[in-house]
């Protein structure tokens, strides 16, 4: 039986703690008697037979939904939407959950004689996936059956002819989604629920939406009132999506939701030490750590990035839930929590987050400085339920090389955001007010989003808003080992070592602050009392 998450109180016998640092890691010694390390639960057991579990879920759905075969008939229009490259992290070893589920759904559709089937990758404002990425997600068989016939689409949030406005919620939020999906007799949405934030009404209301629609919840106010994104009932982001999802349903759009959960087995065997508690490292783990860090020390950054991006996680499916959206998501959330929740008592003055090489928006790409901010303050900071692990006015210490580097194809508007916007202000409200519309409507960004592999022009703004709650909550942010000019442009303070960072933090939180080290990945969720 896997062990639950664990909070280690650091004493003088505690070994140095592994801290992620981009494409690498460091062993950091934490001050004894006032530091703690939060460890993730061990991976929960995988489903014995995922394919059978999928069948069972489709035939015995949750909520008031009929079984999937009962919703399928000859002559109908069926749209299968699925999550994009941002999930899971790292990308999982084949077969991906999406492939397993889509193949099962297609089998049932074929049996029912459904021949108008279109697959849509639910990009929202993310970049279009490459052929190789799509093949990895949905499998060669599905890809070869649909793509050559133009039946595998990637959602285009800027296609004036490909969107339909379904109305406004009672809060005045526009609901505009993919026209093909909205006009189908049935949407089957296939999720990978890596964290509790994923899925539910957010799948269609965000994944298949337009900028006009998304701006109602991807904004500073909503982000600041989502505490956290991982706790649906305290997340304004989710409240807004739920309003939209209910309007979508009321508009007559039928959604059959399929959500799959994973365990947090994030790294293959040779890197197993990354998931272990340091005092339990074997001789082999120590050797692997030394060999890896020494090797990385001699590896050019570009090659190191390429090596880390090639990692495929041995994530295993732990649950599959299908049927009516809200009932499905409630079951999914329970399963995610069962894997990820760690009880943590109270907050500390300082939180240390080692940032890994990957976040949802740099798969096969570069973790640019804006994504460093988003990963640290948008994601890791928000992996809590109750309250953040660091107190109001406390200090977040991030560890990442933070290179002044951008992927020119994937992140063109990020470069401009970094050069122009952040050189003027880092205040999310000011940024939203002064710059968002210009970037969101820039024709060049729009062109690159629609035809190349670029994130939408407004996407870097959303990354910044994602960290808006943390920016408001924290007294200071320090990045260890980052490129000083890039760190300063973010509005943060650079430090050479963790010791220096703690010294700098003392200006904000006093001489002997309490410290939490969030030992992530693997992913977990701090349940802070």
């Amino acid at each position, binding site marked *: 039986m896997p062990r639950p998450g664990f909070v280690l109180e650091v004493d003088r016998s505690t070994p140095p703690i592994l801290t992620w640092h981009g494409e690498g890691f460091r062993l950091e010694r934490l001050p004894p008697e006032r530091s703690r390390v939060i460890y993730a639960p061990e991976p929960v057991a995988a489903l014995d037979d995922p394919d059978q579990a999928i069948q069972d879920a489709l035939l015995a759905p949750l909520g008031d939904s009929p079984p999937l075969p009962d919703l399928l008939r000859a002559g109908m229009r069926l749209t299968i939407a699925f999550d994009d490259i941002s999930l899971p992290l790292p990308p999982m070893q084949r077969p991906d959950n999406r492939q397993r589920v889509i193949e099962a759904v297609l089998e049932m559709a074929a049996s029912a004689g459904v021949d108008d089937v279109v697959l849509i990758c639910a990009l929202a404002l993310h970049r279009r996936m490459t052929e190789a990425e799509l093949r990895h997600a949905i499998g060669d068989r599905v890809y070869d059956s649909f793509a050559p016939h133009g039946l595998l689409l990637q959602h285009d949030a800027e296609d004036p002819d490909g969107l339909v406005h379904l109305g406004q919620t009672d809060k005045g939020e526009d609901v505009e989604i993919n026209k093909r999906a909205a006009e189908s007799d049935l949407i089957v949405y296939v999720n990978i629920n890596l964290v509790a934030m994923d899925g539910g009404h957010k799948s269609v209301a965000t994944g298949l939406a337009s900028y006009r629609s998304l701006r109602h919840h991807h904004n500073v106010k909503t982000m600041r009132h989502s505490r956290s994104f991982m706790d649906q009932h305290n997340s304004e982001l989710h409240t807004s999506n739920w309003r939209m999802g209910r309007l979508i349903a009321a508009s007559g759009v039928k959604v059959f939701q399929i959500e799959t959960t994973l365990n947090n087995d994030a790294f293959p065997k040779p890197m197993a030490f990354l998931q272990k508690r340091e005092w339990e490292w074997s001789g082999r783990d120590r050797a692997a750590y030394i060999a890896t860090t020494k090797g990385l020390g001699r590896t050019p950054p570009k090659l190191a990035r390429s090596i880390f991006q090639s990692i495929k996680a041995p994530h295993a499916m732990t649950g599959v839930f299908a049927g009516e959206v809200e009932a499905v998501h409630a079951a999914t959330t329970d399963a995610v929590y069962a894997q990820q929740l760690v009880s943590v008592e109270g907050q500390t003055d300082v939180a240390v987050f080692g940032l890994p090489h990957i976040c949802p928006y740099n798969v096969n790409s570069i973790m640019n400085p804006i994504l460093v901010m988003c990963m640290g303050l948008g994601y890791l900071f928000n992996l809590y339920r109750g309250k953040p692990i660091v107190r109001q006015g406390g200090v977040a210490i991030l560890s990442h090389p933070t290179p002044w580097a951008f992927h020119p194809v994937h992140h*063109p508007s990020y*470069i*401009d955001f970094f*050069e*122009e916007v952040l*050189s003027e202000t880092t205040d999310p409200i000011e940024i939203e007010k002064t710059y968002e519309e*210009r970037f969101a409507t*820039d*024709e*060049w960004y729009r*062109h690159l989003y629609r035809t190349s592999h670029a994130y939408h022009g407004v996407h870097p703004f959303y990354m910044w808003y994602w960290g808006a709650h943390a920016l408001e909550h924290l007294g200071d942010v320090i990045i260890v080992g980052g490129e000083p000019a890039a760190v300063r442009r973010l509005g943060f303070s650079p430090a050479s070592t963790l010791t220096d960072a703690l010294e700098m933090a003392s200006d904000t939180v006093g001489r002997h602050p309490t410290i939490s080290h969030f030992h992530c990945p693997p992913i977990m969720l701090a349940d802070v009392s």
Partner: protein
Amino acid sequence: MRALQVERSLPRFAAARVASAWRAGAGGKVGPLRLADVDPPDLPGADWVRLRPRLSGICGSDLATVDGRSSQWFRPIVTFPFVPGHEIVADTEEGSRVVVEPVLGCAVRGIDPPCNACASGHGHRCERLTGGHLAPGLQTGFCAEVGGGWSGALVAHPTQLHEVPGGWSDEAAVLIEPTACGVHGALAGPTGDDQVAVVIGAGTLGLTVIAALNRLRPDISRIIAVAKHPVQKEMATSLGATMIAAPAELRRAVRRATGSWILDNGQLTGGASLVIDCVGSTESLSDALAVAAPGATIVMVGMPGHISTDLTPLWQREIRLAGAYAYGPEPMAGGRHSFAVAIDLVAQAGLERLLSATYTLDRHSEAIAHAASAGRRGAVKVAFDLRTEKRR
């Protein structure tokens, strides 16, 4: 009197060129510039006057000379040994305070009838820079016979003098000449509607161009300034630049401002309609060509030299490349002379603040080094202070 003098010495020019390749301004120590005790220049004619400089600025063209990087183009239109310094505020023997318009055109040289350019009021385009009763020299500060501002005394023709308005400081007055150059450059480009202008370089010239564009060109709605150093960025913004970009960020800044696209090789589909190059290097002209829109005008205000760049966009996009040298009548300012416009501009825009440091002549090496790295050292204009020079 004491004077800084540039001698025709090939070894010293060569040494300056080598030294300045390592560090700009290093030619001040090893190059052709020497502090010497010399006789004041004689009056070339009865109507000429003697001047005692109070302040004299160090210009980019002076630095190029001291560092041995000036173009051979100037060889026949200068005479050695000359005393540099053409940004001059000085006292006349009658006690009035003047700034010098340094161009040595036909009127100054006693040539009558004047050349066509001088006859039309464009003395800066004079065709007789080697003629008349004066030794060759395109300006005061490059002619052995009239002296220059980096000394205790020089001579000037009355037509070269502009009286300093009452109540002005010397520090403000010494900015008039470089500001006149900036005015001339800013008013050289064609007019249009809602134009985006790019100013490359944020030294004295660049900043005065920005000030002139901001106050004299209502058709320019946005000014993108290329600046490297914090003081330059701050000054450019305060003088009217609407966007500041580092050199490497220029293309993207222009793209954002003009709504154009960037193609695979980094070229813009559109660009700015007016680009003013205040640097005059291969890099700056290449940048100018990269961000100039089809049909745009590039004005070269900074003194260039040998430049190697791809002129394909100039041809394919019908870009006009125009020089803007010195000063003259400004049609866009109702025909007023650049100097007159500059006097107003210095006062209105508070350009006195561009003067960052002054040095005495005996500290000329430090002065040259400071001027050559002004931006990096948080400065803009550096000048010699002659007010304590002994009168003889």
